[in-house]
């Protein structure tokens, strides 16, 4: 076998597969979004954008991402630095903290439903402590803030683990000598974190943020389990178009809008956290 051809042969299956099941459907979505019966049109987009639920679901999706992702970033950085100075029990603590990584958004929604539903654990606790006389229906239209908080908590609970894993792996790649040198020069732990850990963690932060932000725009099942129709989000609207309204063109147009938002944020993160050439460890 010609050694120069071998690598191409090895990447051929992935390339073919992604060509058929990634690029091709992507073009189909675009085609479906831009056509109705009679050729090129922007009607689908106009329909989708002018629907009364669109501004709400757009706002909800952004608000959720805006509230969830920064907290997750801070929390995962905190957890990662905690773990890095741990000697005993490190493996056990990391295992527990990464458990939510394997838990789906739907399951996470159901888990937090057990806490927030009317006869759930939060109400049981509150009446047990004498804070409330009778169970409050948290997840109803009278309590939009509670619906939002419940969804937010479930998202933070579920998806911090993926950032934690990426950041812990990134910290593991930073040479210990850097910290020793910083310590010799009298840097406090906080200074070491700011001047050594954070700059060298850039590539990992980039990956973690891109992954999380994109997934935040895809939020769907958590919302379906906790908020139902009380808290419309973009992905849920796509599902509704495709499934309940049987309007493939509109679903495709909305899908492209979500895609454009995801790509825009990916580029922003790539640019904001770009790694200078030749500066990798």
């Amino acid at each position, binding site marked *: 076998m010609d050694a120069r051809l071998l690598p191409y042969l090895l990447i051929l299956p992935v390339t073919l597969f992604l060509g058929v099941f990634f690029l091709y459907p992507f073009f189909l979505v675009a085609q479906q979004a831009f056509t109705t019966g009679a050729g090129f049109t922007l009607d689908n987009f106009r329909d989708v954008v002018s629907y009364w639920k669109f501004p709400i679901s757009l706002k909800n999706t952004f608000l959720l991402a805006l509230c969830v992702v920064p907290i997750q970033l801070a929390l995962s950085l905190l957890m990662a630095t905690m773990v890095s100075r741990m000697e005993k029990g490190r493996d056990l603590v990391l295992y527990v903290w990464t458990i939510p*990584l394997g838990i789906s958004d739907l399951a996470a929604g159901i888990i937090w439903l057990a806490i927030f539903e009317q006869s759930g654990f939060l109400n049981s606790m509150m009446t047990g402590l004498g804070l409330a006389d009778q169970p409050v229906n948290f997840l109803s239209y009278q309590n939009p803030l509670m619906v939002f908080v419940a969804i937010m908590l479930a998202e933070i*609970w579920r998806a911090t683990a993926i950032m934690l894993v990426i950041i812990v792996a990134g910290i593991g790649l930073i040479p210990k000598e850097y910290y020793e040198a910083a310590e010799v020069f009298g840097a406090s732990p906080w200074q070491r974190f700011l001047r050594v850990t954070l700059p060298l963690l850039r590539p990992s932060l980039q990956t973690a943020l891109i992954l999380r932000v994109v997934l935040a725009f895809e939020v*769907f099942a958590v919302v379906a389990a906790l908020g139902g129709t009380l808290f419309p989000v973009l992905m849920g609207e796509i599902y509704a178009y495709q499934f309940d309204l049987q309007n493939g063109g509109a679903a495709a147009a909305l899908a492209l809008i979500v895609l454009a938002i995801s790509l825009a944020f990916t580029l922003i993160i790539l640019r904001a956290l770009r790694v200078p050439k030749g500066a990798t460890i």
Partner: protein
Amino acid sequence: MTDATIDVPAAAGTRKAGNTLYIASVALLIAWVLVPLYFLLVNTLSSPETVNSFPKPFLPEFDLGSLQFFAGFQGMLSALKNSVLVAVLTMILSIAIGAPAGYALSRFDFRGKEVFRLLILLTRAFPLPLLALPLAVLFIRTGLDDTAFGLALVHTTLAIPFAVLITFSLFSGIPVELEEAAWTLGCTRFTAFTKVVLPLILPGITASAIFAFVISWNEVFAAAVLTIENRTLPAFLLQTLAESPMHLKFAGGFILVVPALIFIFAVRKYLFAMWGIANR
């Protein structure tokens, strides 16, 4: 920040207080993860009547009523079976297709390598479940609609970027000298791979296969769009969300969670090594 002029006992006092705070925060964060899971367990192991009663007991009754109701619910067991089938197919497909590319990325310098890597990375920036929308039409044309295999193809698209990057980092962790030594001892490239590299890499490959399994097991959007009769468990639960009783939801959620616990435990050793190199 404290500075060096503080006398020793005070510094020791601060350190002790800091340590207590540190241990308390670790404990709190562990509780933050485990307590909601515990509540789900309590609900799952209680009778349907208890689940719907108020106030709720904080200890499980060890009553299997809810789980029995789940098992007896029309279509639930076949949804569970579909979920396993789709996830296993996804696991096999993504490793079979992704691992060779991971090997190529770690061992060869070839033209277009950086472009290829970038494309793989870029696929992660796409909301991939959306691809299920056009594929629904395509699958109807090809007869793949509503089949486990069709859904597995979409889930493989989701899992493949991870499979490539993870196997890439795994292969990169094995010194190329080992392979070269095998070549000088009379192995061909292929036998060197099967006899030297493969045994070393197998646990890691298993871990990344399990990762693909979890991705498929948890995916709900594509599953809900692409399957009607042969729904997977998440799709089935999602569809019945509005009308199903609470105890059914909790039992279903519990069944969804159990494999996750086992899988994260099985791959815990590899979890961090996999991501370490995959980010570079």
